[in-house]
């Protein structure tokens, strides 16, 4: 077994989520400025977005738990995810990118459900499970000596 640690900085994800919402708002601004301003989350709404980020981390845990052992702890605004998996799984940085992207998408999705539900439908939060499955169920070909 090998163990991989993935760290997710809450402040970075929060910033990424707000940036994503900002650009969605900029597009909508062309047709509806009031709706756009509701989508573009401000620092006042950090707590709500942090709650959605925490929810997303829960979903990540449940998804990965099916294929590997995962334990998550939180210290100083950072989620530490320790994944234990067989040596034969060629796990790489792609998993970390996928996790961060999923958390951002999930938090944006939940925020859009309140502020602009029709826009929320355009965010894909379903493919994460398939991507995780593909990464964690892959195995190296045994080498013949």
């Amino acid at each position, binding site marked *: 077994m090998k163990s991989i640690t993935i760290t997710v900085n809450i402040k970075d994800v929060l*910033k990424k989520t*707000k*940036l994503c919402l*900002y650009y969605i*708002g900029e597009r909508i*601004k062309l047709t509806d*400025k*009031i709706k*756009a*301003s509701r989508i*573009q*989350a*401000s*620092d*006042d*709404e950090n707590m709500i977005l942090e709650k959605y980020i925490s929810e997303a981390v829960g979903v990540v845990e449940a998804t990965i738990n099916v294929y590997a052992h995962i334990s998550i702890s939180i210290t100083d605004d950072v989620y530490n995810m320790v994944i234990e998996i067989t040596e034969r799984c060629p796990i790489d940085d792609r998993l970390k990118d996928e996790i961060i992207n999923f958390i951002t998408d999930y938090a944006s999705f939940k925020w859009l459900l309140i502020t602009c539900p029709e826009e929320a439908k355009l965010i894909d939060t379903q493919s994460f499970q398939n991507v995780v499955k593909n990464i964690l169920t892959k195995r190296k070909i045994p080498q013949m000596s």
Partner: protein
Amino acid sequence: MNITLTISKTNILSSIKSITGYTGKNTEGKIDNVSITDDEGTIINDLIQKAISSIVGSLFLYSAVLSDTGISLTLPANYDSNATASAIFLLENAIINYASSSWFYIARLDKDAETYLNKAGSTLAELQDVLCSRNKPS
């Protein structure tokens, strides 16, 4: 973030006097009825106050409160404060258009009253758009 959109009643009054003066000049035989002079000061001040109250009501989305200096608004932390100058300009224009419209109704110039009421509506919509300006997250 709290901002105050200041209202200069002197500017507003002077603009209304210009508008009503020119409109009166161009309306045959009605210059005395339409133009505002200092004699109409009380009524025009009431119309300005009415216009301000009506605008405060339509800015409820921003918890608008009328104060001595102007209209105080509560905006999100990411509001782009560079837009405030243009918001003040649009607010004054909206007040001028509303008050002029009310005055034209009194002076029996229904068509002009209608025109200025429409102008006021579109200026107010522009003001709401300007208040929706947001900063990019840094």
